[in-house]
């Protein structure tokens, strides 16, 4: 554990650009403590964490993909697929249902990965195809219907508690740690960053680029399917047409606001979590003050711009 390998020391970078997101989260929390009634209650914090958990989980996968200089638009559709499959297999027990929906993630990830790594499509296009088709398939599978979910084991994942924290939040926390560890400490993590830095060079250096890339897209899709099944558990129903709608944009926002550049070669896992929290707090603050979506959206826009401006990378060449 010597020097942090992820981010080389940047004498040039101001403190603000490194820690801006965290600062913003702190400021917003402070504002709420003073100006929002009942903000500083355990139940409120709990709701915010519960609501942000699926976005965090999806954003983790997105961060990995963005680290390879890619992007994955299909995460919302993967959530929908996972959601659509759960009621179909719940009859065989919760384990079966969870496994099947994770498998759907693996399948989509493989398709994305192969299209990007082997066929050589640009990630945005490759995943656009599944963004469109994946949700369609999910809706076809579920016959477009919302299905109530009553399985107690599954519902426990969505609304149960473990040691005083929602299970959902535990899952997200464990995944955050796992992904952070993956990026910082493992061979896989470094290869991933190398691909983001210069894919061609990584290839010529004899690294298994195709394999790593496919794995990254599979991981991203599996994380999305976890988010999908947790959402089902939380909403206590499966609606393939609604689950994860537009989450790709929220996830990308979280990643980028958290300081991971879209140009690849670098991943900030904790920043991503902070980015997601920041956007969640913005929405919560607005709703709590009974401000309408119009205001929320305009404020979000401004915050994204400021956060990204402050954290923006200098050009290295």
């Amino acid at each position: 554990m010597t020097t942090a390998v992820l981010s080389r020391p940047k004498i040039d970078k101001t403190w603000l650009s490194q820690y801006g997101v965290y600062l913003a989260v702190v400021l917003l929390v402070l504002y709420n403590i003073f100006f929002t009634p009942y903000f500083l209650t355990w139940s409120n914090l709990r709701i915010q964490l519960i609501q942000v958990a699926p976005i965090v989980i999806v954003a983790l996968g997105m961060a990995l993909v963005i680290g390879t200089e890619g992007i994955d638009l299909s995460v919302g559709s993967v959530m929908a697929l996972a959601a659509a499959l759960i009621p179909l297999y719940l009859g065989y027990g919760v384990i079966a249902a969870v496994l099947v929906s994770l498998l759907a993630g693996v399948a989509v990830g493989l398709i994305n990965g192969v299209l990007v790594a082997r066929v050589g499509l640009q990630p945005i296009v490759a995943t656009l195809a599944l963004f469109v088709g994946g949700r369609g398939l999910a809706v076809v599978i579920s016959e477009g219907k919302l299905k109530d979910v009553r399985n107690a084991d599954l519902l426990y994942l969505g609304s149960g508690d473990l040691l005083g924290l929602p299970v959902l939040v535990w899952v997200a926390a464990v995944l955050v740690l796992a992904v952070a560890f993956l990026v910082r400490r493992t061979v896989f993590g470094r290869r991933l960053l190398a691909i983001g830095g210069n894919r061609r060079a990584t290839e010529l250096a004899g690294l298994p680029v195709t394999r790593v890339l496919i794995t990254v897209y599979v991981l991203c899709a599996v994380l999305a399917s976890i988010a999908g099944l947790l959402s089902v558990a939380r909403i206590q129903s499966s609606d393939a047409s609604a689950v994860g709608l537009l989450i790709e944009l929220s996830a990308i926002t979280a990643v980028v606001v958290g300081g991971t550049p879209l140009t690849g070669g670098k991943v900030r896992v904790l920043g991503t979590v902070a980015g997601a929290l920041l956007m969640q707090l913005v929405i919560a603050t607005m709703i709590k003050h009974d401000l309408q979506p119009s205001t929320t959206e305009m404020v979000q826009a401004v915050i994204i711009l400021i956060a990204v401006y402050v954290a923006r990378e200098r050009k290295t060449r």
Partner: protein
Amino acid sequence: MTVSEAPAIVVEDVRKAERTDHVVGAVQRQGALAVLVIVVLISLMAFPGFRSFDNAATILVAAAPPMLIALGMTFVIITGGIDLSVGSLYVLGGVLAAWASQYGILAAFALPLAVCGAIGVANGLLIAYTRMAPFIVTLAALLGARGLMRAISAEGSETYLVRDGALRRLGNGSLFDIGYQVWLVAALVALGMIVLARTRFGASVYAVGGSEDAAALMGVPVRRTKVWVYVLSGLLAGVAGAINAAKLGSGVTVLGTGMELDAIAAVVIGGTLLTGGAGTIAGTVAGVLLLGVIQNLINQVGNVNSNWQQVISGAFLALVVVAQTYLVRLRRVN
């Protein structure tokens, strides 16, 4: 070293594969057009409902607003950028046009042009001068413009009606049985083609996307070019919104989500590289029409579960893009 003083001749020998290269190149450039022609031919034979002139006119009219958005997107993507804000600008433009129509048709165009153009300027300036990624800047604009639209329409619940007769006629009148807006869009597309292919600005657009650093060192006004493409994209999205409002007779607020991705898909299907530096408007036109025809066909097939539509569209998108990639590769290997 013994080297003769004779003047050097760097002759690029005619490649053996040059001819196949040209063919493959043309197919790749005009791939969307080729697919479009094939799909249309098959549909003409298979579906009687597809054959009518009315149906063709309906497809064209429906394609008019997406065409304008994709036109602007083509400029943006050729510079290596992306504009996610167009869907929101489109709805915003429609609402503004409907509201302003009480002051006449000119106002109905001027207001959306001014507002959407201004947002385009903001996008462009931020992207050009702060080096923030286009994806994220325009994502913020997507949110901001939608918020603005909601703010002026009582959170989307207030729908302004188009008050101006001329604007309504533009929306639903026709010349030679083809809607006025199709003619308008055709004219703008033609203009776009000339600008891109035959002006210094067009050359700058390609240069910026081909290699930003090189372009800057060669004296291309990189920043100005970037600002302009986002302005253009914003303006076209505003016009698209306005003509759609003219057609619907009101500033509908529940439109436009996902429109930016449709436009990107159309542009990419049309053979424009998302990495920038290459692409044509002709390709984009084919791409937009192709997507329109697919939607039309799925309805023609009749009572297929309409849920399949997205599945088929997604598969088609993948197919076209994969095919294109292989063609490009074939060309490189030659």
